[in-house]
């Protein structure tokens, strides 16, 4: 019999509705875990225990009064600190926003609240989502629950770590170039980056708008489908929102891969891919074949340029998105504002941003500058189109594409942070789906030396159902889901 904090969202909801436990007990159990582990993990920037317990009481009252409750009633949910929560500090793990309390809720938060989900806190991340290790956070790195000397991945490292340690039942991450899938892989949890435009970005503090999506990070595939069903769907407040009807993604979860055509692009197994990772992913593909799938090796040649393309576009957009942080209306402000506005802005921005953020702003500014725009930014847009075309071609033949989420297992904290290029290289398998706007899931598929490995399943636009079903089938026929880090 699992303890309350170990339950999945599905189990929690069931037990609360069956009156076996109260929402309050469930939320309390999660907070006990948080208090026990946070010193070692540092998954959270902000906790809202009192508000969460009050909300749980409210739900328990509704249930005892026989009133209807929402789909996520009583579930403890952690939210990446890049997503605006009304009245709750939202820092993007930056000194710049260390005091920023948004006056409004992001659309996804409104949807969660409508379904009686309980926000328990805001999770640590790379500053402004710029990183793959959660080491660039102003509030210190989050540690990998499987080996606390290692990184949890990033940028949604806090969200992944809190799911792995049962410090939350569900978590929201954001994925600009792998920021959900990378930490999901490194912490052995499930993480889905939805199709661009499926989940509203209203209230997501922008790093690179044309690439990013909010997505679920969960203990298993069912929870992932459930959570996606709540947050997905058209939002008129987001001009890039896709006009699709809400859908119950749990309905597509069948333990069956019959007829599923898997493409295995050789570019996903490029130079630098760890052998154990490669082996485990192939094992996973064969596992799916046992359940009726077939595979074929293929090539998407333009993926070779994914990293360069991704970083130029992301940094260019970031240089503009982050221009608003001048300290005038909100955010970090140097004590003495002597001097003209330009001087004050410069001081605020120099002290308010960390080194990686400054690096990306400077590089992005450069890429957009007169004389370099055509050479870098415009060219990147063209290559992006070519990459998208590669995927479109591949999906004429395959239902899904599979490869490793990360080329190598979690590395040591401090190992790569001094070498930005080496760190950027770790995104080689994840960024292409952001460039193409496709849905992709990372699902745990094994371990090497006790460190998690994740498999990435990519599908055509708006075919989250395919990624979920393939991941679900795999999960149902293996026991990686039951493996938990010893720290628990």
């Amino acid at each position, binding site marked *: 019999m699992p303890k309350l904090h170990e339950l999945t969202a599905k189990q929690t909801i069931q037990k609360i509705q069956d009156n076996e436990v109260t929402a309050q007990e469930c939320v309390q159990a999660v907070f006990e875990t948080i208090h026990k582990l946070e010193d070692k993990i540092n998954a959270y920037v902000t906790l809202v225990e009192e508000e969460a317990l009050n909300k749980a009481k409210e739900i328990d009252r509704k249930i005892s009064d026989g009133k209807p409750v929402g789909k996520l009633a009583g579930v403890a949910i952690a939210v990446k600190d890049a*997503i*605006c929560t009304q009245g709750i500090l*939202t820092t*993007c793990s930056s000194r710049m*926003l260390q005091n*920023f309390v*948004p*006056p*409004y809720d*992001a659309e996804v938060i409104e949807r969660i609240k409508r379904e009686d989900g309980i926000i328990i806190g805001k999770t640590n991340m790379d500053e402004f989502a710029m990183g793959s290790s959660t080491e660039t956070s102003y509030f210190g790195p989050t540690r990998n629950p499987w080996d606390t000397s290692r990184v949890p991945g990033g940028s949604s490292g806090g969200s992944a770590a809190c799911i792995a340690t049962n410090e939350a039942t569900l978590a929201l991450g954001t994925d600009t170039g792998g920021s959900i899938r990378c930490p999901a892989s490194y912490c052995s949890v499930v993480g889905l980056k939805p199709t661009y435009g499926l989940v509203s*970005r*209203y*209230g*997501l*503090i*922008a790093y*690179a*708008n*044309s690439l990013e999506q909010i997505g679920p990070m969960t203990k298993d595939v069912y929870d992932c489908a459930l959570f996606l069903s709540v947050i997905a769907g058209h939002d*008129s*407040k*987001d*001009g*890039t929102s896709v006009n699709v009807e809400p859908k119950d993604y749990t309905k597509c979860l069948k333990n069956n891969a019959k007829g599923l055509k898997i493409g295995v692009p050789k570019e996903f197994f490029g130079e630098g891919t760890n052998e154990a990772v490669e082996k485990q992913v192939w094992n996973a593909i064969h596992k799916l074949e046992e359940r009726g799938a077939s595979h074929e090796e293929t090539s998407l040649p333009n993926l070779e340029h994914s990293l360069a393309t991704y970083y130029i576009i992301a940094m*260019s*957009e970031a*240089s*503009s998105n982050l*221009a*608003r942080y*001048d300290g*005038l*209306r*909100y955010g970090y402000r140097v004590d003495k504002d002597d001097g003209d*506005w*330009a001087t004050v*802005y410069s001081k605020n921005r120099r002290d308010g941003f960390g080194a990686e953020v400054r690096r990306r702003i400077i590089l992005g*500014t450069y890429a*957009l*500058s*007169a004389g370099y*725009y*055509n050479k870098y*930014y*415009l060219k990147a847009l063209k290559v992006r189109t070519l990459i998208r075309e590669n995927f479109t071609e591949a999906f004429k033949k395959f239902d899904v594409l599979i490869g490793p989420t990360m080329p190598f297992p979690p590395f040591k904290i401090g190992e790569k942070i001094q070498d930005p290029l080496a760190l950027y290289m770790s995104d080689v398998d994840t960024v292409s789906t952001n460039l193409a706007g496709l849905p992709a899931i990372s699902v745990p598929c094994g371990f090497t030396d006790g460190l998690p490995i994740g498999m990435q399943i990519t599908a055509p636009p708006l075919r989250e159902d395919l990624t979920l079903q393939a991941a679900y089938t795999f999960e149902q026929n293996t026991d990686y889901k039951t493996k938990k880090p010893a720290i628990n």
Partner: protein
Amino acid sequence: MVNAKHLNSTDKNNVTEMSTKNQNEVRIGLEVHVQLTSLKTKLFCGCSSDYKGKDPNSLVCPVCLGIPGALPVLNANSVDYAVMVALALNSKVSECMFFFRKNYYYPDMPKNFQISQYDQAGGVPLAVGGFLVIDVGTKRKKVRIGRVHLEEDPGRLVHQGAIDTSPYTLVDYNRSGIALLEIVTEPDLDSPKEARIFLQKLRSILEHLGIFAGRLEGSIRCDANISLTGGTRVEVKNISSFKEVERALSFEIMRQKNLVKKGLSVKHETRHWDESRRVTISLRMKEKEHDYRYFPEPDLVPITITEDFVENVKEKMPELPEARISRFVDAYGLPQYDAEVLVSDKALADFFECTVKLYDKPKEVSNWMMGDLLRNLNENNLVLTDCKITPEHLVEMIKLIEEGVISGKIGKRVLPEMVLTGKQPSLIIKEKGLVKISSRDALEGIVEQVFSEHPSCVEDALADENAVHFLVGQLMRATKGKADPQLANQLIHEKLESLKK
């Protein structure tokens, strides 16, 4: 409603094409910014655009304050309006338009970038090309339009006194995000006067399109490029009202000419029009070309403007000034000049048509409006929409004259009262005792009086018929203009005749 085909009709035979070898020594190009306040909301959020007179920072939301995470969503009606203007300016509407980010730091911009449009780097503004024909004296002139595009207005900076001496800057974001239409001309204007005529015509078009709600302060703003032939171009910003344009341009031209006279060179720079001191001042900004790092706005998808859409807008287009002028000439028999003056201000033209509906003598109505009404407005520095005078009242006044209740002269005295107070003319006449004296009995006594007070003039009048008008004048004076002029004349002549006997 008019047939769209006639919208762009201009008398092309009579148009002077701009020649590249311009003999005038001044070249002016305008960048006009028009607020689309009639949209009711801002360009990318639901905040009210009716910001005039509201408390600072009271009409704001996360979107127009640039709060992290907020996203812009395009107000679809803005495209309708913008396409209308483009069509009225004979511009080519783009099939697909993009928004671009114009990146620069300035305290009036909450995001430190402005969502705008761009005609380079793969950008497509709403419309390109086009022209507007203006009348300068007797010649017609074609002013070329470079482009028409949509963008968001920044916030408003408030200074204590002048911008360069104020100890602080306050920011009001009520204006932030208001839809702006930018209309850029080629440097085809030769004088401040031409610039004013261009703007007047443009304003009348915008008024007729229903885009321009009255003449609110700041709802039409202007930047200007000014150069002397062969000289350096100077940009003058912050010309916040229509009236200031001629002043600002004249000052800047004088400044440049003085520099040239002294053998100094004109610096390529951006200058600021200081309305209170009536000078352009250099803001001492770094004199390098701004690099705005334009790139496509990722939060807004490209907007397709189909032919159907454009046709639809064309059908909805109201009558434009050119067509209205022709109609005034054809349907009401007005002289071209009258028609042009009336249509130059939509409110005047509307007033005229309302009046004519009630009183079918267009020329008579036009005479009163062109003469006394306009003079009165100008003298009091008013525009028609500021006053309470109504077409009904004007008709009543004309009829009172026609019926002989008051004289035309008294009419000229009643009209200013009507303009200022909005009172009915009959009431004004009653209050001031202005009814015409047309009874023989009443006037004969006054004639006697005038004759006895001015004996030498009576002598003159007896000798010279031309001197009679003096006596008539004295009679009018004695009656404060109320005497029936015909009767007055008659009585004075009768009296003179009797003296001759």
